[in-house]
């Protein structure tokens, strides 16, 4: 009996290690090949590099014009996710507190957006009317819109845990709605707001379809599109492509490792009620 349990335990531990290795191998492959010379990396494998070529990163930054792309990505994701989090929190607060028939409908209407496919064709016309076509502001606005439905969904769910008595107390103290929201409610929403902020940052950082459709000038490209074009040009230089990939995923991986608690609660909230 004891022995059986031991075998079961160790086979489970071995199985989970194999799965973890399968999950991490492609990433390790990139890391190891990013510091090889071009001939060494021509067949991407796990042979150790003879010398560590850290200047690959400098080459990539220069050839791939990554400084401007990094700045672009940072701006697109940063601004759109901050605005999205704030605006969604305001909406979620009112929709969750004042549950009229109409507001319930509005909530469903906005959350339905999770399923809605963007129409890239007609969106061009709307962007032309609003003078946003081929601009950085245009990308920021659309990124914000794509993240709104999920953000409202998470923040709305979290509002249930914020006691209603707070509103009444603040009202008696003579707070207006803005002051009530920003100094009482929003601080209470913080865990959910951080989750929403991180998730929308990651989603927009990883996105590349919208710039692919809309941005035709290279100096507005985000990291993802820059990598894609770099890959097209230097398909044979896997060492450089790997270095470029590392620079692209580095921010995402760092944010993930630091904020994984928030990411996992966010991704599982709404789906599981413990």
């Amino acid at each position, binding site marked *: 009996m004891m022995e059986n349990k031991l075998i079961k335990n160790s086979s489970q531990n071995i199985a989970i290690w194999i799965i973890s290795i399968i999950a991490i191998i492609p990433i390790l492959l990139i890391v190891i090949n990013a510091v090889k010379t071009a001939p060494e990396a021509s067949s991407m494998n796990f042979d150790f590099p003879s010398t560590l070529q850290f200047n690959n990163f400098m080459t990539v930054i220069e050839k791939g014009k990554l400084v401007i792309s990094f700045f672009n990505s940072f701006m697109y994701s940063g601004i759109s996710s901050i605005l999205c989090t704030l605006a969604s929190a305001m909406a979620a607060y009112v929709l969750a507190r004042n549950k009229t028939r109409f507001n319930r409908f509005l909530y469903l209407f906005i959350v339905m957006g999770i399923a*809605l496919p963007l129409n890239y064709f007609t969106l061009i016309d709307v962007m032309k009317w609003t003078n946003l076509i081929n601009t950085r502001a245009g990308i920021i606005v659309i990124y914000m819109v794509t993240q709104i439905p999920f953000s409202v969904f998470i923040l709305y769910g979290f509002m249930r845990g914020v006691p209603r008595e707070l509103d009444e107390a603040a009202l008696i103290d003579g707070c207006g709605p803005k002051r009530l929201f920003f100094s009482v409610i929003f601080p209470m929403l913080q865990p959910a707001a951080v989750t929403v902020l991180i998730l929308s940052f990651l989603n927009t950082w990883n996105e590349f379809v919208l710039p692919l459709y809309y941005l035709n000038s290279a100096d507005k490209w985000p990291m993802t599109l820059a990598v894609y074009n770099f890959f097209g040009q230097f398909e044979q230089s896997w060492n450089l492509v790997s270095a470029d990939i590392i620079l692209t*995923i580095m921010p995402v991986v760092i944010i993930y490792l630091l904020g994984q608690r928030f990411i996992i609660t966010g991704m599982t909230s709404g789906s599981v009620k413990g």
Partner: protein
Amino acid sequence: MTRRIYPFYFVAIVLCFYVVFAVVPSFMGIYLSFTDWNSYAEEINFIGLDNYKTIFSSDENYIHGINNTVIFTISTIVLKTVIGLLLAILVNSGIKLKSFHRVIIFMPAIIPMLVVGIIFKSILHPEYGLINEALRAIGLSQLTQHWLTDADWAFKSIIAVDVWKGAGYIMVILLAGLQAISHSYYEAADIDGASAWQKFRFITIPLLMPTLTVTTVLNLLYGLKVFETVFVLTNGGPGYETEVVYTQVFSQFTLGSYGVGTALITVLFVTMTVMGYFSIKLMSREESNE
């Protein structure tokens, strides 16, 4: 009082942007899908159902794209759910370094699909790719394939890459669902002498049903919108073998034939709105049951 502390303009900000940039284009799309809209001519003429006839005619390739999208969606739902559930049970079963493994297995989910695609183009390369090299190294060179250029394998490879990326995400959600199931059920079953399979079949699965509904909805919505995986790995090739709806939409966009493209998106729009509506109904019913 409610009007004063819950002002409508708090909602209006989000609502305006959402309506202008997401809802209006979709409805404009429905109208324009009945026209010959394209990027060359200024004039737009009403042509009735012609674009839809083109999409659903057997001379064209669009049905193939729709079929592939459906196959992709169903197979990723099944594979990600089964693998995700097995992983969740494994991680939940008192292994060592539980949170370390969870962090690693979830990692592929946060890497951009574009990057995953580029990496797998190398891994699946017929000559120097990691998979074929490994097969040759262990003497199974007859199993090596042209994973992305052989018509029999290309779509399967796409599905496999997508499952590799997405299974960890599903695992994390199901794991949270498993952890929410009270231990007392299992203890009671132990006293009654239930086998591991019986416990799984009659406790875990029924109590995990709400979570499984959510993962299925997520996979469904994701699967119907698939684009990047196919675009980067094969771009619809070899030939038109692995085309899905969104790669066809993108081709129409680059070709400038907006009418057919917007009709394709409208087909998706209607499908997804109907499915989205029922999913939300389904989930909110389960919510109110609790």
